[in-house]
């Protein structure tokens, strides 16, 4: 368990330094934990699990600046997951008696296969055409922002800024989608 914390934290620190491969690996490992954690908490709504995983990944990604490097990474990520779960229940007006448990359990969940996220697809559909196209392009081309930028006729730097903005908008739309 401490191994995992050490591994996640070092990936997070590399990601904060601008290492995209480390950041991608971090989000991958985190998505497995999140999936296990959420499925246990919402046995009545398995269809919502992947939506919540994706919403949490977006939040973790967009709010990376709030991570204090002196603190354990898992405590920070777990707090975000817990916040997203409570927010989900509040929006759906679900009252739950299940305890939310602690970081230790968050670390020890069994990974499960990923699913399609419907909320994200729906939210993507509500974005303005240019931003939707940019995200679709990056999705198809993987890492390469310079290609996506070239197709849209802008520099890589401009494409980077545009992508970040599009993701922020997407996160907001996603949360409002089922409000």
């Amino acid at each position: 368990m401490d191994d995992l914390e050490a591994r996640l934290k070092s990936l997070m620190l590399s990601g904060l330094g601008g290492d995209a491969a480390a950041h991608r690996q971090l989000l991958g490992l985190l998505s497995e934990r999140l999936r296990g954690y959420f499925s246990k908490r919402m046995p009545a709504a398995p269809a919502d699990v992947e939506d919540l995983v994706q919403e949490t990944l977006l939040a973790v990604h967009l709010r990376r600046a709030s991570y204090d490097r002196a603190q354990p990474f898992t405590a920070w990520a777990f707090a975000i997951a817990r916040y997203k779960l409570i927010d989900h229940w509040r929006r759906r007006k679900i009252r739950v008696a299940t305890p939310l448990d602690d970081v230790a359990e968050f670390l020890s969940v069994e990974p499960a296969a990923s699913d399609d996220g419907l909320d994200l697809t729906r939210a993507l559909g509500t974005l303005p055409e240019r931003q939707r196209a940019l995200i679709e392009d990056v999705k198809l081309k993987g890492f390469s922002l310079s290609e996506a930028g070239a197709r849209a006729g802008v520099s890589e730097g401009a494409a980077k800024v545009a992508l970040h903005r599009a993701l922020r908008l997407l996160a907001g739309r996603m949360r409002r989608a089922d409000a």
Partner: protein
Amino acid sequence: MRTPELIDILAADTQAVAPGAAPRWLAMAAAGGAAIALMLVLMWLKPRPDLASAMHGGFFWIKAGYTAALGVAGFWATERLARPGGPWRSAAVMGLVVLAGFGFMAVMQFAPMDGAARMAAMRGVSWTVCTRNIVVLAAPMTLICLLVLRQLAPIRPMLAGFAAGAFAGGVAATVYGLHCPEATFIFVGLWYTLGVVVSGLIGAALGRFLLRW
């Protein structure tokens, strides 16, 4: 969309984040907010005419020290409430200790006075406008701080909003000292403190809506 696809997209958006970015953003918000408050004091309220001689007196600095200390506690609390799991209680305790210390001084000065002197000390010449002025001076910085918090991850929106408003209130009240001629502990303890608290409450009310994510 499948989660691995989302992760690829997020990885494409990997940007370096400098260490200490969050506190630096809040410090910049304070600098911007203080500059706006200073401009309002210079152009709207006007500095007190005896500013130069007042700055030689002790109470001018005691007053500034009190409100600045409230601002520091507010900064500290805001910075911690901006992070999930940030230990914010020690910052709240610092604010309360500053408040209690100043309140004690106010009681010590107030207790031996007779009725008429008490009234005069409490009201000064500006008790009807002091709180309002501080709240107005703090409003721009409160907004800037809330915008910064929207980039971070406050999991207690109202509490984080209160901290941001109190932070702004402390900074604004310190700038307000350049205009305000009042010089009793009881006056500052009542109306300045109320200005900081009201500014905090406005922050909490706004935070409830602006800081959801």
